[in-house]
C-alpha cells in the first residue's frame, strides 16, 4: 500500500465525524482536521513521487473493472498543490472551525475531508467515468460547504446559483468526454488519447471542454457564481475552493488540451488566451471596486485564473505556430502561477477569516488600524497582499514574470501586423492588470489594517489563536521561499510540462543566479541579498542616532483630524472608477436632506452600486428570454386533468399512425 492509497483511506476515516456523537463535537472537529492534515501530508509525499519519476506514466495498482486510478506528472503537479493547501488550511481550521461549535461542526469536518478526497480523486482518475463521478461529488460537497450557513438568505441564494452554474459546466464537460470517448471507443484516458476526432466534432469537443472548465475556474463571462459563492462559504472552505478547486479545472482542461484534443489549431489557443486576458483585467477592476473583503479576494481569483489561462493559451498559440519548445515556457508559467496563486489566495482568504473573527465584519469601510491590534496577522496579510500585487521576493512575481516572458516569446515570433496587434493587446491588458492589482491590494490592506479605527468594531479586535497564525505563517513562509528561490519549483513544473509530450528543452531563462548572455533574467536570490545589504546600511544610518523623539498629531489644516476624515475605500477607488466608467457603469445616487440650511449642516446620503457587466448585459436578458419562452408554453398547460389525458391520447394516436405508415 503506498501513500496515495493510504491518504484516500485516511480522508474516508475523516468523514466519520458525520456520525460522531453530538456530545463530543469538539473531538469530532479535531479528529476530522487531524485526518485531513495527515492525509494531505501523504498526498504531498506521493505527488513528489510522481513529479520526480522520469516523466513516464505511473499507475497506481487500484484498478477494478472499467474504473481506474492513475497519476502522471500533470496530476502530480496539482496533487502537490492540493496537498500543501490541504495541510496548511486544515491546520488553520483547527482553531478557525471552533467558531462553528454548535452549528453543525461535525458536518463541516466530515464534508471537509470528503471535499479534499473528491479533489484528489478527480486528479488521479484514469477514465472519464471516475472523473465525472468524482467531479460531481466535488461539486455537491462544495455546494453543501458553501451552504453551511444556510440560515442567511444570501448564502442560500449564492449556494443555489453555484449549484446551477456548476452543473451547466459539468454537462458541458460530459458532452466533451462523450465526443472524445465515443470516437476512441473507450473511456479510459489512455485510450481516449488515441481518439480519431477531426473537423467539426473536434472543434465541438474543444468548445464544450473549454466552456465547462472555464466555468469551474471562473473565467469571465462564466464567473458570476464565484463572487457570490466564495464570500458565502466559511473562510477555510473559500480558501480551499479558491486555492485548489479552481485549479482542478485547469488540470482537466490541460488533460483535454495535451492528450485528447491537441493544440495544433490556432484559434483554440487564441480563444483561451483572449478570455484569460479579459478575465484578468476585468476581474481585478471589479475587485478594486468592492468593499467586502472576501468579494475582493473572489474577484481577484477571477483575475489570477485569467492570468493562468492566458499563459496557457499563449502556450497553445505558440504550439500551434510550430514552436513546441517555446510553448514550454508558457505552460510552465501557467503551472507556476497556479501553484503560487494557491498559496497566496489560501493565505488571504484565511486572513479574511481572521479579520471576520476579530471584528465580525467583512466590510473594510468599517475597519482601520487593525495592524496595531493584530500585528502578526497584519504582517502575514501584508506578505499575501505583496504577493498578489506581484512584488519582488514573493511567489507572485515569479508567475507573473514567467507569464510576461511567454508573451514576449510570442511577440518575437509574431511577424505579421495582426499578430503584433494581438501581442500589443496582451501587453496592454497585462500591464493594466498588474498595476490595478497593486492598487487593489494596497487599498484593501491600507484601509483595513492601517490608519485609525473607523468604527467601534475594531476596538474589540485581538490577535488570533496559535493554529490560525500558524496557518497564515506557513503560507507566508512558502510564498517568500518560492519568491526568493523559485528555481526548484520552476524546474519541477518545467519537467511536468515536458512530460506531457512536448519537446523538452534546456533552461533559456536564467532564473536562479545572474549572468550574461541569457535571453531573459531573474535572480531573486541575488537581488534579495543585495537588497538586504543596502537595507542594513540605510537602516543603520537612520537608526544609529536617536531620531524619533517628537510625536505630533497629523496635519489637518489646523484642526484635529477625526477618524471619519480618513480616505474611504470607496473614495480610494474613485479615480479608477471614473477612468473606466464605460465598463463599470457605476450607479450613483446622492440625496441631500436639507433641514435648516441649504449648505451648512445638511445631511448627505450617498449610494453606490456597481452591477456586474455580464450579469446585467448577458445573464439577465438570458434569464428573461428563458422565462418568456417558458411562459409561452403556458397556453397548453391548462392544469385540468382531462386536457392532459387528451394530450396523451393524441400522442398515442400519432404514434399508432406513425407505426402503421412506416
Amino acid at each position: 500500500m503506498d501513500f496515495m492509497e493510504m491518504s484516500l483511506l485516511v480522508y474516508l476515516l475523516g468523514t466519520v465525524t458525520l456520525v460522531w456523537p453530538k456530545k463530543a463535537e469538539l473531538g469530532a472537529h479535531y479528529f476530522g482536521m487531524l485526518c485531513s492534515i495527515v492525509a494531505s501530508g501523504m498526498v504531498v509525499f506521493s505527488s513528489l513521487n510522481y513529479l520526480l519519476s522520469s516523466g513516464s506514466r505511473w499507475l497506481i495498482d487500484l484498478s477494478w473493472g472499467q474504473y481506474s486510478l492513475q497519476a502522471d506528472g500533470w496530476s502530480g503537479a496539482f496533487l502537490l498543490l492540493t496537498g500543501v493547501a490541504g495541510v496548511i488550511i486544515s491546520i488553520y481550521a483547527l482553531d478557525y472551525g471552533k467558531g462553528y461549535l454548535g452549528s453543525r461542526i461535525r458536518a463541516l469536518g466530515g464534508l471537509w475531508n470528503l471535499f479534499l478526497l473528491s479533489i484528489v480523486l478527480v486528479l488521479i482518475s484514469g477514465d472519464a467515468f471516475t472523473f465525472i463521478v468524482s467531479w460531481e461529488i466535488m461539486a455537491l460537497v462544495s455546494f453543501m460547504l458553501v451552504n453551511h450557513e444556510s440560515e442567511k438568505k444570501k448564502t442560500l441564494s449564492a449556494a443555489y446559483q453555484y449549484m446551477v452554474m456548476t452543473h451547466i459546466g459539468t454537462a458541458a464537460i460530459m458532452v466533451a468526454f462523450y465526443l472524445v470517448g465515443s470516437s476512441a471507443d473507450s473511456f479510459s484516458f489512455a485510450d481516449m488519447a488515441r481518439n480519431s476526432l477531426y473537423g467539426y466534432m473536434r472543434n465541438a469537443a474543444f468548445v464544450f471542454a473549454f466552456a465547462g472548465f472555464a466555468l469551474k475556474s471562473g473565467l469571465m463571462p462564466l464567473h458570476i457564481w464565484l463572487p457570490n459563492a466564495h464570500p458565502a462559504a466559511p473562510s477555510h472552505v473559500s480558501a480551499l475552493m479558491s486555492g485548489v478547486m479552481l485549479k482542478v479545472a485547469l488540470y482537466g482542461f490541460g488533460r483535454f488540451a495535451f492528450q485528447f484534443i491537441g493544440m495544433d489549431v490556432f484559434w483554440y489557443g487564441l480563444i483561451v488566451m483572449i478570455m484569460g486576458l479579459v478575465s484578468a483585467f476585468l476581474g481585478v477592476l471589479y475587485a478594486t471596486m468592492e468593499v467586502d473583503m472576501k468579494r475582493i479576494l473572489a474577484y481577484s481569483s477571477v483575475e489570477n485564473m485569467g492570468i493562468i489561462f492566458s499563459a496557457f493559451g499563449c502556450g497553445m498559440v505558440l504550439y500551434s505556430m510550430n514552436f513546441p519548445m517555446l510553448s514550454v515556457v508558457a505552460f510552465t508559467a501557467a503551472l507556476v502561477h497556479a501553484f503560487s496563486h494557491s498559496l497566496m489566495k489560501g493565505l488571504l482568504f484565511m486572513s479574511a477569516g481572521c479579520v471576520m473573527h476579530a471584528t465580525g465584519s467583512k466590510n473594510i469601510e468599517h475597519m482601520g488600524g487593525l495592524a496595531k491590534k493584530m500585528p502578526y496577522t497584519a504582517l502575514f496579510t501584508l506578505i499575501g497582499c505583496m504577493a498578489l500585487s506581484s512584488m519582488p521576493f514573493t511567489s507572485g512575481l515569479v508567475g507573473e514574470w514567467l507569464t510576461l516572458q511567454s508573451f514576449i516569446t510570442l511577440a518575437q515570433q509574431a511577424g505579421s501586423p495582426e499578430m503584433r496587434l494581438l501581442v500589443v493587446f496582451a501587453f496592454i491588458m497585462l500591464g493594466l492588470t498588474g498595476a490595478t492589482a497593486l492598487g487593489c491590494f494596497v487599498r484593501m490592506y491600507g484601509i483595513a489594517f492601517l490608519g485609525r479605527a473607523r468604527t467601534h468594531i475594531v476596538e474589540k479586535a485581538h490577535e488570533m489563536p496559535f493554529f490560525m497564525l500558524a496557518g497564515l505563517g506557513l503560507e507566508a513562509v512558502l510564498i517568500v521561499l518560492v519568491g526568493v528561490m523559485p528555481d526548484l519549483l520552476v524546474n519541477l513544473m518545467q519537467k511536468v510540462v515536458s512530460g506531457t509530450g512536448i519537446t523538452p528543452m534546456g533552461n533559456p531563462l536564467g532564473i536562479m543566479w545572474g549572468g550574461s548572455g541569457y535571453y531573459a533574467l531573474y535572480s531573486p536570490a541575488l537581488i534579495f541579498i543585495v537588497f538586504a545589504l543596502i537595507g542594513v546600511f540605510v537602516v543603520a544610518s537612520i537608526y544609529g542616532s536617536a531620531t524619533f523623539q517628537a510625536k505630533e498629531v497629523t496635519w489637518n489644516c489646523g484642526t484635529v483630524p477625526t477618524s471619519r476624515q480618513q480616505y474611504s475605500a470607496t473614495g480610494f477607488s474613485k479615480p479608477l472608477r471614473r477612468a473606466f466608467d464605460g465598463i463599470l457603469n457605476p450607479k450613483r445616487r446622492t440625496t441631500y436632506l436639507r433641514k435648516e440650511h441649504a449648505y451648512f449642516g445638511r445631511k448627505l446620503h450617498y449610494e453606490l452600486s456597481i452591477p456586474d457587466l455580464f450579469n446585467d448585459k448577458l445573464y439577465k436578458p438570458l434569464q428573461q428570454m428563458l422565462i418568456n419562452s417558458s411562459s409561452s408554453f403556458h397556453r397548453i398547460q391548462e392544469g385540468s386533468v382531462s386536457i392532459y389525458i387528451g394530450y396523451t391520447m393524441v400522442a398515442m394516436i400519432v404514434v399508432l399512425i406513425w407505426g402503421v405508415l412506416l
Partner: protein
Amino acid sequence: MEYIMTSIGLSLVQGFVLLLIAPLVAGIINKVKARLQKRQGASIFQEYFDICKWWKKATILTPYTGVIFVLAPVVYFMTSFMAATMVPGFLTGQFSMGDAFIFVYILALGRFFMTLSSMDAATSFGGMGGSREIYISVLVEPAVMLAILINSIRYHSTTLSAMVIDYNEAFFTVSAVLACVAFFLVMLAENSRLPVDNPDTHLELTMIHECMTLEYSGKLLSLIHLGSYLKIVVFLALFGALYVPVEIPLALKVLLGAVLIGIVETLNNKMRLFKVRVYLGAAIVLLLLAIIAE
C-alpha cells in the same frame, strides 16, 4: 562566482555614483525652469543643502502611524537605488540580476510601500495622494510594458543590457523615433512631473506624489527626496541608453534630458486629473505605431 562578485561590486559603485549626482540633476532641472521663467533661481547645488538640512532635523511621527510608515521611505529609497544599479551603459556591462520587467516591478515595490504609508497617517490628504498615484500608475503601466516590448522585439532579449539601442540598426527609424517620444511622455508621468503632477506643490490642484509625503519629516523625508531624485536620473539614463537614437555619450544625454524636462515643465500647465488618460493614451498609441512599424 568571482565574475558575479565583481559585477555586483561594479553595479553598487554605479548606484552610488548615480546617487551622488542625482540631486545635481534635480538642481539643473530647477535651474533651467527658473532661468526660463526669468528668475535667478536657487543654486544647482540647492538639493544637496536641502537633503543635508532634513537629515539633521528631528523626525516627527504622528501617534496613528505604525511600522509601515517608517519602513516605506526606506523601501522606496532602496528600490530607487536598486534600479540605479541595474541601469545599463555605465559600469554594469553585460551582467544583470534581473531584466526590464524586474526593473519595473522593483520600482513598483517602492510605489506599493509609499501608497500604503500614505494611508497610515490617517488623514484625507494622504489617502487622496495614494489614490491618485494608483490611478496614474494604472494608466502608465501598459505604456511601460509596450516600451519594453518594442526593444525586446528588436533585440530578442528582455535584459536591459541587451536592449541598449544599436545606432547602426535604429538610427532615426520611424519606430525608434516614435518610441523615443512615447518613452519621454511615460517618463514624465512615472516621475510625477508636469503636466501630470506638479513636483513643486502639494496643494489641492495636484495632490499626488507630494501629497503622499506630507506627513514626513527629518531623515525619512530626505530619504524620500533622495529616492525621487535618483529615480529621475535612472529614468533619464534609461531613456538615453535605450530610446534616444543618437550617438552621443550617455552622461550628455542625461544632462540634455534634464534640460528638456525643465523646458517641458515651463511650457506646460498641470492638466486635469482625468485628462491624464488621454495623455497616456497618446503615449500608448505612439508605442503601438512604433511596434507595428518595427
